[in-house]
């Protein structure tokens, strides 16, 4: 929609800005709290930063874990999964969207079962499988079960289906083979969807905890969240809010930074250019 709804749009923006302020509260607090000199005291809840800012909690957090290794492993883990997924979901999504074969719907539904089964329930059998593959305790092993994603296949199929047929036809007539159509026409056409999936997959696996904890025993294969938990658990004492905030920030930071840096590119591919 374009046109004289700019007034409407402005109003929408203002409404969203108000809601956005509420939405952002936890973050604002997280940042102020992480920069506070101590997390006790009555005004810990205040959103106003306490001067002078202190990086004490970050220092603590940095000492508690081997962040270099943790970051490296997390990047391998999440980016590796994403790369494999991008391949598997686009190809499978293509088949489910465009290739008719007997029982397609059934096979598709069967694929979807994966969405509904959660790792914790299947953990032991999966570890047994990994063990028999000799992949227990390796990053690759930890990544393997995620490399096929019903979620992604579903999403890509749905997106492919709404690509106008004529575009594919035009390409066919121009002599494009399957690969051409796939790479040059279909993938760009569902680019926002792929991007959405990528962000989601990346963050999900970046933030994954239980499964890596279960299958990764070597310290030098540990991922960030395992490190985070190592200093934010507090079963018998009380929470060090500042430390939790700092740690959480450190875990989310790279992905958040990437996101903010490329915000314009990421997020604008989900929007309509002004001139349409």
């Amino acid at each position, binding site marked *: 929609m374009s046109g004289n709804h700019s007034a409407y749009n402005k109003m929408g923006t203002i409404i969203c800005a108000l809601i956005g302020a509420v939405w952002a509260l936890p973050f604002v607090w997280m940042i102020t709290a992480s920069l506070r000199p101590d997390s006790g005291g009555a005004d810990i809840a205040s959103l106003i930063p306490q001067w002078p800012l202190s990086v004490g909690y970050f220092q603590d957090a940095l000492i508690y874990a081997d962040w270099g290794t943790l970051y490296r492993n997390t990047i391998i883990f999440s980016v590796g999964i994403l790369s494999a997924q991008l391949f598997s979901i686009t190809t499978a999504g293509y088949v489910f969207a465009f290739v008719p074969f007997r029982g397609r719907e059934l096979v598709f539904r069967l694929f979807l079962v994966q969405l509904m089964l959660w790792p914790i329930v299947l953990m032991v059998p999966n570890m047994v499988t990994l063990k028999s593959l000799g992949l227990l305790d390796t990053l690759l092993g930890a990544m393997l079960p995620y490399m096929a994603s019903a979620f992604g296949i579903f999403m890509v199929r749905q997106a492919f289906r709404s690509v106008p047929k004529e575009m594919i036809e*035009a390409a066919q007539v*121009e002599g*494009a083979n399957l690969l051409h159509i796939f790479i040059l026409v279909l993938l760009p056409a569902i680019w926002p969807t792929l991007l959405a999936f990528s962000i989601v997959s990346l963050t999900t696996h970046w933030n994954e905890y239980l499964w890596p904890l279960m299958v990764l025993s070597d310290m030098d294969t540990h991922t960030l969240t395992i490190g985070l938990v190592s200093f934010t658990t507090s079963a018998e004492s009380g929470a060090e809010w500042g430390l939790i905030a700092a740690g959480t920030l450190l875990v989310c930071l790279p992905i958040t930074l990437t996101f903010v840096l490329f915000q314009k590119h990421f997020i604008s591919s989900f929007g309509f250019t002004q001139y*349409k």
Partner: protein
Amino acid sequence: MSSVRLNNVAKHFGAAKIIQNLSLAINDGEFIAVVGPSGSGKSTVLRLISGLEPVTEGTIQIGPRDVTTLHPKKRNVAMVFQNYALYPHMSVERNILFGMKIRKESREAQRKALSRVVEILHLEGLLKRKPRQLSGGQRQRVAMARAIVRRPELFLMDEPLSNLDAKLRNEVRLSIMELHRKLKTTTVYVTHDQVEAMTMADRIVVLRDGIIQQVGTPQELYQTPANLFVARFIGSPAMNIIDIACENGSLRLPNGLKVPTPAFVKPALNQARTVRMGIRPEHIILASEGQADDQGSGLVSLAGTLSTVEMLGSDIVLHTTGGSNGLRVRVANHGVPYASGDTTRLLLDLSKAHFFSAEGKERLC
């Protein structure tokens, strides 16, 4: 370039029989125009030839190859889609060069080809835009450019100029003709524009409800339409049709006027009881004072009143009532002021008339 043969082709969409038993042989290098009313199956024919739509029955050959079940990409045709079908995410330039790119043609060749079509279609300055930033006519030109940038065996064009203004259309039309003269690429061209069909085509195919009505050169179609449908469809304003009763040796017009059957039509009409006569608006003359009938040589005059006067610029179309009820007459715009309500006398040149059987299915002469 290749010849194309459609052998008893049929296409059904579910229960709807869109194309029925269609056979057509297109010669190597020929330029064929396909015309017909909206929904008559023109686009479908192109889609069948290109392979985008599988045929329900029959076979299709391009050159020596039977391509009936061949994938579109292997048919080596270029097509202009009626609704353009541009790639929304690619710039105009990439849209145009897509086909060459996937054929891995050299950059140099691409550059050259691009600059050639850009010139023909006046796409200067639009190359970096996305399709949604273009006007309707610009989009259509991009679609056209995308087709003619390549050198396929066969061009399929579905109303490629419908959204262009007369001047540009004329230019592009001439460029296409030029191109065709140079390359001699077999072309199937769907159009609603009679001028295009008449001037560009070696032969015209008239389609109606998925059935071919006539195939012939523009002259043939204009001069000897095979049936009433073709007669009325070709030419604008459409041919006047008059129901006529044949009564031993003379023809009776609906207003009662009787004229002796001219000798040259006698043999064809002598069996018929009633016939339908067609006469083109440009073959009716406004009789000047004193100009007389010559019923023997087929000049018949009718009195009438002008009901509507349509100024078309260079021409004027007059609609008449009265004895000449419903006839349309086309005269050149020489500045003579016609007004509705004027009475006039029309001279019909029966030697230029066409006679069809009562149901209109058949040409008598």
